[in-house]
């Protein structure tokens, strides 16, 4: 019979078989009747001669060849029915597995995308990152020498990224520009999708500069029109010709929007540093190279070391300056995250194992109850193999259900993790639920199904039919009791450690986002940035004029109460250096403390409601010609002036003027501290200077305190800037609370991760306790029945069972506390404002966890009290 027949005509065939057998019996009876037997006798002896009709039919059906499929279907149907009849068990088991599998899948998707996927370049393991030892970046002259002198790289390319204002098709926007050697794309093995790649002749082309744009830029600003090739694009006011469009998704390095070639052999920066090709002191380039065919990493390292030594000797650099590091690119890009991810993977593996152990426990508790059923089936003719297969099928069903639910859970968890960890996890875009992940999940489900499915199967091996059908049968598995208990205790301990960690992080996080520490009021403040550059904004005066005009127009907008501008929003600062006070004389180097330097307008302090503690902030009188003034923050006043009055003293600006002389600023006011640098760290001394007196080439950020809806003000503000200069795009528009939120991304991510883990661990621990106590109750049902019959009260029984739960709970919490006390020390780096051994957190977590586990053991305890002694004594 073919599969088709079996699927659709099976019933018909079975009826036919039945009819065939009946026909045989009828004919046999008929023949006997012809020989003189009565109808009755004939029938009986015909049947007797035939044999076991059912068995014959069954063996015949075996011949049809799909027996295995049939029995499997039977098993599945039966298993499903069993699961439906015990919803409590099913839900708990499936949920347990879903948690374990879901967590695994979520972490695995991230690991898969970041660690396992190759970089989207050709032969990515041959690409290396080359940098100078002790420095993050490379000096341009060094790069040129490396390029000329090496024999181990088939290509070597340098690049640097910078923000730029682009204008085309009538509007302007902000973008990230990468200036790179013309062979960068060839080195990576990626070609422009449209147009052409760079040529060597594109370098040093002062008159017709060319640019390659990203796919996104092409789509969003040129409408995806192929005629964009050859068109014109203004970059920082200068006209470039577009020669190519990169494929979608290519944004190397980082998230570059366009690529241009250098004008003088080596990528330059928009800052004047003299002849770039001779400069060995200023390091800003990133350099990558492709190993030539046949060259190993070791050989490349050796040759670069030799070259570095040669250069160092030639240019008299000290030993601290020597040395070159060559590392595979992949390692650089994911190196920071690799250990974290691997630890996570190990951790979720452990979680899954405990989940399996839990479910195994639960199944054992149930198998005990069903041993009588097994005995009956065995007596009816089921082979041992059949029973085992039945038990296995149920396990696999639970595993599949758990796996499916786990997949859904992990989809949600992955999205959560990605949103929170977007800045921390590289290649975030590539993380998704793809075939590999699904296959992984399926494999996990199967594996776990087999793992805990073994438990009742092993139990079954001890099933002796006679015993299980007899009354009073009991199976002693004392040695596994200890294993089970220790497993649950360790689950509770793990849950405690993780919960404590999560609790500490939560306290730390709340402390961070608490506004009282900020030093300013971020509510209702809108911020956005501009970066005017190009010919029109070369001098301080020109820049000051622009900002002044912009501030005027912005202040005039309805809905704007205060308008100010600053180089960089708190808590970040862009410039730092040692603080020097003129009146204190010259200091030894070690005594100089570092501070932050900022450029701001008077409206800045008012917009952020930073209190003015002494003196004044900037005024109209502090113009370009007037003596330069500064406003300092409270920390600087406290550290450098203690009891003295800082007003009237002089502090130095962090850079010298164009003649190389130090610029002294008169202190005219003291303002409150704002949070700067790391969240939670103490504020640094800070010096503010008026935007009219010192300029900031890299662009500044406006802050507007609004009275009304932020969205309305946004549109009006954008228009105001446009009217000041249409070529200056506005970017990074967000409310100040939003901007602050970004600085909290790492602590938030840590909290989320720990929180998720802790939750999963607690749930598993709870289920574990429930499982073990439940099992104990089922094992000792007979004993409980005897006790009740002999006069024990419900309370006594409850106490007896509950004692087990209490013991587990206390042991687990105790061990957990001890471990937490030791381990939280390693978290100190992640905590702000909270000590690793915070008594309150430890206490609360312990109490909560104890309560939860006690509750978990309470439920089976109550079930024990409901045991009917008659039933318990009579049946098992």
């Amino acid at each position: 019979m073919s599969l088709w027949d079996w699927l659709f005509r099976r019933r018909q065939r079975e009826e036919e078989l039945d009819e065939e057998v009946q026909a045989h019996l009828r004919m046999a009876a008929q023949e006997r009747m012809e020989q003189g037997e009565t109808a009755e006798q004939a029938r009986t002896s015909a049947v007797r001669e035939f044999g076991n009709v059912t068995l014959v039919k069954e063996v015949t059906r075996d011949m049809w060849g799909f027996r295995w499929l049939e029995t499997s279907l039977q098993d599945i149907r039966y298993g499903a029915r069993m699961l439906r009849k015990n919803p409590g068990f099913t839900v708990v088991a499936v949920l347990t597995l879903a948690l374990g599998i879901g967590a695994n899948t979520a972490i695995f998707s991230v690991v898969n995308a970041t660690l396992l996927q190759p970089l989207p370049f050709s032969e990515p393991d041959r690409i290396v990152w080359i940098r100078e030892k002790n420095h993050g970046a490379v000096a341009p002259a060094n790069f040129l020498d490396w390029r000329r002198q090496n024999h181990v790289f088939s290509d070597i390319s340098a690049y640097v990224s910078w923000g730029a204002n682009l204008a085309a098709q009538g509007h302007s926007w902000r973008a990230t520009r990468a200036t790179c050697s013309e062979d960068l794309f060839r080195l990576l093995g990626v070609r422009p999708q449209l147009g052409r790649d760079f040529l060597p002749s594109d370098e040093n082309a002062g008159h017709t500069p060319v640019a390659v744009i990203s796919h996104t830029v092409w789509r969003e600003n040129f409408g995806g029109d192929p005629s964009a090739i050859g068109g014109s694009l203004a970059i920082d006011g200068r006209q470039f010709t577009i020669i190519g469009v990169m494929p979608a998704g290519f944004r190397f390095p980082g998230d570059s929007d366009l690529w241009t070639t250098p004008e003088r052999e080596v990528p330059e920066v928009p800052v004047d540093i003299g002849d770039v090709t001779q400069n060995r002191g200023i390091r800003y380039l990133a350099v990558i190279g492709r190993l030539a065919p046949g060259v190993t990493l070791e050989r490349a390292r050796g040759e670069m070391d030799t070259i570095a030594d040669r250069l160092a000797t030639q240019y008299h650099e000290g030993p601290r300056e020597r040395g070159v590091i060559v590392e595979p690119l992949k390692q650089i890009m994911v190196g920071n995250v690799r250990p974290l991810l691997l630890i996570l993977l190990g951790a979720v593996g452990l979680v899954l194992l405990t989940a399996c152990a839990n479910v195994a426990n639960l199944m054992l508790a149930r198998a005990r109850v069903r041993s009588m059923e097994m005995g009956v089936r065995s007596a009816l003719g089921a082979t041992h193999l059949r029973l085992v297969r039945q038990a296995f099928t149920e396990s696999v069903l639970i595993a599949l259900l758990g796996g499916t639910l786990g997949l859904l859970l992990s989809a949600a968890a992955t999205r959560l993790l990605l949103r929170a960890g977007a800045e921390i996890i590289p290649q975030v875009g590539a993380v998704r639920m793809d075939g590999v992940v699904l296959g992984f999940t399926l494999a996990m489900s199967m594996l776990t199904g087999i793992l805990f499915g073994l438990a009742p199967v092993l139990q079954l091996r001890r099933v002796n039919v006679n015993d299980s059908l007899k009354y009073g049968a009991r199976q002693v598995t004392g040695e596994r009791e200890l294993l089970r208990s220790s497993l649950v205790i360790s689950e509770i301990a793990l849950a405690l450690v993780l919960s404590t960690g999560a609790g500490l992080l939560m306290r730390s996080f709340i402390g961070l986002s608490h506004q009282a520490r900020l030093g300013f009021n971020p509510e209702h403040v809108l911020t956005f940035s501009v970066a005017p550059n190009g010919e029109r904004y070369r001098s301080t005066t020109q820049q000051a004029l622009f900002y002044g005009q912009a501030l005027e127009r912005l202040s005039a907008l309805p809905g704007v109460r205060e308008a100010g501008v600053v180089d960089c929003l708190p808590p970040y600062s862009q410039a730092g250096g040692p603080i020097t006070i003129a009146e204190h004389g010259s200091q030894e180097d070690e005594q100089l403390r570092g501070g932050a330097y900022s450029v701001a307008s008077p409206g800045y302090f008012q917009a952020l409601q930073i209190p003015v503690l002494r003196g004044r902030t900037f005024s109209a009188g502090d113009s370009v010609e007037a003596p330069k003034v500064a406003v300092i923050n409270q920390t600087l006043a406290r550290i450098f002036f203690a009891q003295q009055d800082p007003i009237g003293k002089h502090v130095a600006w962090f850079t010298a003027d164009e003649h190389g002389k130090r610029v002294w600023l008169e202190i005219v006011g003291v303002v409150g501290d704002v949070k700067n640098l790391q969240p939670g760290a103490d504020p640094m001394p800070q010096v503010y200077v008026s935007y009219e007196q010192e300029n900031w080439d890299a662009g500044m950020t406006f802050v507007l305190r609004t009275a009304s809806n932020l969205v309305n003000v946004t549109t009006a503000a954008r228009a105001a800037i446009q009217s000041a200069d249409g070529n200056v795009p506005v970017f990074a528009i967000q409310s100040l609370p939003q901007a602050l939120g970004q600085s909290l991304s790492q602590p938030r991510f840590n909290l989320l991760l720990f929180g998720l883990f802790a939750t999963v661990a607690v749930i598993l621990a709870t289920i574990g306790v429930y499982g073990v106590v439940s099992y104990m109750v089922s094992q000792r049902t007979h004993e409980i029945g005897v006790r009740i019959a002999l006069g024990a009260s419900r309370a006594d029984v409850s106490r007896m069972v509950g004692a087990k739960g209490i013991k587990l709970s206390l042991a687990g919490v105790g061990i957990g506390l001890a471990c937490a006390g030791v381990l939280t020390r390693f978290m100190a780096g992640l905590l702000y404002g909270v000590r690793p051994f915070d008594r309150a957190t430890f206490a609360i977590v312990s109490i909560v966890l104890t309560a939860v586990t006690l509750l978990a053991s309470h439920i089976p305890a109550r079930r024990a009290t409901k045991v009917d002694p008659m039933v318990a004594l009579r049946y098992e």
Partner: protein
Amino acid sequence: MKPKRYQNRIELLQGTLDMLILQTLQWGPQHGYGISQSIGGRSGEILRVETGSLYPALHRLEKQGWVTSQWKQTDSNQRAKYYRLTPAGKRQLLSEQARWGQIVNAIAGIMNPEF
């Protein structure tokens, strides 16, 4: 308690029952009861086919394409499933007959050695 599988009473060699069935069907289509009676009768009641072996064998032969089946009316106007030999079955029968002949000679050679 392990259920005993019905085994061929004719334990000489596997496939002997198949051969006997095919041979019986050579004389024309027949239903299961008829085949068992025929084998018993023609062997002088020495070979008695247990129904537990017969029906599985018949269905197996049908699956292998050596017989086909059809529901027909018997003489006494009852429905019964008749089996018939197919050309492939006929070829199989011939090869089995040949093999049977070889085996018989081989056994005879051992049991009655010629000096």
